[in-house]
């Protein structure tokens, strides 16, 4: 197994004046499960394809282990790929599909058999080994594609949205299985996805990309609780973080945030940082996660300085939780996530309080988080 290092990697296509991937620097540790996430066209798949050797690197150095592999063909990079549009070899049965790569590499028959049967056992497809791909379901085909990668015992697994062709239930199941598998095989995995649930649940570290640039690379916990900018804050988390534009002012020694329908006090620690950075008297953007707005009387009683009123436009009861779409705070509607047992109904005017210790404050111009997380 090995780590992967990307040093100042750029990708520029002929005829295009803008690079698709810009100055990507990443040090992926051996056995790490790294997830690349971002919206369509952010450069995550291109980055993975460069690591795979399917795209030429325009600038920069790519290392797998200690070796620079910029000019090494995919087959010689000791990697295995599983892509969204995985294709099996249609005229070979499952066993042959899994064994073919090893056969090409001149592995001994016994060794091939051992590896194929072991991988089939891990993936629970032992009973399918004689079947042709045509006779398999989507989920079973996906497992075979994974099996074909596993038997190679590569230094690095590359996966590009491998679950996106599966239905929601199967996707959840396979998500857990891939995570288990990565731990069991103790191998480095680089995984590309659109899906932030996949990113948050599978990755040891998540890299959020936008317009070819890495926005933040951190553990799921840090990414969620300490997003570096508005983009990351809005991209990670569903429903998305609420953003409310307003002013910061100082009143009787306390720092207050004021916006349409909202006048709340910033806790002392955060207030000091805002003062030190010169934000008093300036416009900023307040970020509040839906779950950090509370309607329980106990919380309202304990947080008199962060109470606000709002009108419930829509309520969605998901059983274990309820989403309230609220009007009257800031310019746009905000979403609060409250307990599923709440009696709140659409059309009601209600009082909520913000957990001010969990707020985020973003610079209006640079969109950077004022409270940058420091390791």
């Amino acid at each position, binding site marked *: 197994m090995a780590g992967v290092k990307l040093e100042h990697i750029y990708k520029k296509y002929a005829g295009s004046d803008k690079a698709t991937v810009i100055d990507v620097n990443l040090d992926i540790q051996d056995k790490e499960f790294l997830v690349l996430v971002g919206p369509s066209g952010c450069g995550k798949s291109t980055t993975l394809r460069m690591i795979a050797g399917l795209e030429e690197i325009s600038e920069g150095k790519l290392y797998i282990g200690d070796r620079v592999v910029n*000019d090494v063909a995919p087959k010689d990079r000791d990697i295995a790929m599983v892509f969204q549009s995985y294709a099996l070899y249609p*005229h070979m049965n499952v066993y042959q599909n899994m064994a073919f790569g090893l056969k090409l590499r001149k592995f001994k028959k016994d060794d091939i058999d051992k590896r194929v049967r072991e991988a089939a056992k891990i993936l629970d497809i032992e009973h399918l080994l004689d079947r042709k791909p045509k006779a398999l379901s989507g989920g079973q085909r996906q497992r075979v594609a994974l099996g074909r990668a596993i038997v190679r015992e590569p230094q690095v697994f590359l996966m590009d949205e491998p679950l996106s062709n599966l239905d929601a239930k199967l996707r959840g199941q396979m998500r857990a299985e891939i995570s288990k598998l990565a731990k069991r095989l103790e191998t480095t995995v680089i995984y590309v996805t659109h899906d932030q649930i996949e990113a948050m649940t599978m990755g040891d570290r998540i890299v959020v990309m936008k317009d070819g640039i890495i926005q933040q690379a951190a553990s799921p916990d840090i990414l969620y609780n300490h997003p570096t900018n508005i983009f990351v804050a809005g991209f990670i988390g569903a429903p998305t973080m609420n953003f409310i534009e307003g002013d910061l002012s100082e009143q009787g020694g306390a720092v207050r945030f004021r916006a349409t329908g909202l006048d709340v006090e910033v806790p002392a620690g955060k207030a000091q940082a805002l003062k030190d950075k010169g934000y008093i008297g300036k416009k900023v953007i307040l970020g509040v996660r839906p779950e950090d707005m509370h309607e329980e009387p106990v919380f309202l009683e304990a947080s008199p300085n962060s109470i606000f009123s709002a009108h419930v436009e829509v309520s969605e009861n998901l059983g274990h939780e309820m989403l309230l779409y609220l009007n009257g705070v800031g310019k746009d509607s905000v979403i609060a996530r409250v307990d599923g047992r709440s009696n709140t109904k659409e059309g009601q005017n209600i009082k909520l309080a913000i957990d001010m210790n969990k707020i985020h404050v973003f610079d209006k111009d640079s969109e950077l988080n004022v409270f940058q997380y420091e390791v």
Partner: protein
Amino acid sequence: MTDMATKSRLEKLLGVTCSVVACSETEWRSMQESADVMNEQALSIELGGKVYFRWHQKVGSDVELLTVESDRLTGAERALIEWILQSSQLSNKEGSHKSGSSEEQRANQLGQWIHGKLGGQYTGVQDEELPESIGLKSRLLPSMIPFLLVSEHPQLTHTTYTELYKLLKSYFGGEVYLIPLEEKEWLILCAEELLASAEDREEDGSEKPEEALALFCEGLYELLSNEWLGECHLAISNPMVPAHTLLSTVGLLRETMYLGRAFHVTSNIHLPWMLHMERLINSIPDGVRRQFIDRVLSRSDVFLDPETLTTLEAFFLLDCNVSDTAKKLYIHRNTLLYRLDKIKQETGLDVRTFGDAVLVKLILLLYKVTKRK
């Protein structure tokens, strides 16, 4: 380097178009006489406004001639070509003793015959029976599945015919033919029986032949991208008998490759039966295309926005289904509806209606091949 590669290099270096014609040894002698060339060993002659270079003596008895319009060549260039051909022939002779297998030689012979007949063209191709002199002819009588492979990988020059042939042979597990065509372009032929081998015992065999062929193409692409050089392009066509219809098949595959790469730039697998509309649009002259866009759209820049393009492409791919498109794009259904409404406001075209959807689909395809200011 193959003969085709040498020819392509020469064309690039000299900025001229060369063609290859075949003639018998006797015809060559009589051409020499007509051109008043006394030296039988002469490598070139000038006749009827063309310079003919004696290029290659093939495995059969024919001589292949490289021809160039004489007014396109200076004396020095002509001498230089003679020298290059001489060196190339010498190294071919040496190479054939050392490495080139007889299979490779036969494949090269067929590739050169195809090149002689087609050059790089793909339209207006007339079929012609393979001549008896083609070594592979007797093996090309059964029905076969044709693939066209194009790879522009920078490491291509380091790979050999044998390496790719071996890989294909172990993949298909039986008779397979790898025919080098132009530089970076190969024709692959494999037995049609392979299609039947994809059927499972328990299957009812209800799959359409095109679906089965597409799966084969995807499988082969997977193999080549994982086990060969990576990025490549593949086109496939319906099974055919190479001895009878090889030229039209190569023409169709080349056209498919061209259309697929022009209209679907992110695709690597190109299927002729998926490109009917593209074929039609490609045949419309550029001026008429532009005229159409100008008439239909008041603002021609609307569809240049990447977000609009991605949205519409996904929407059409999923048969204009709003829910499926929203899911595919990872956006809320309302966001998609908002985007579609915005397009309607800006263009006057509502892609949720059949007529407007057809117009927008046509415009999107036209955009890809129309020169715009």
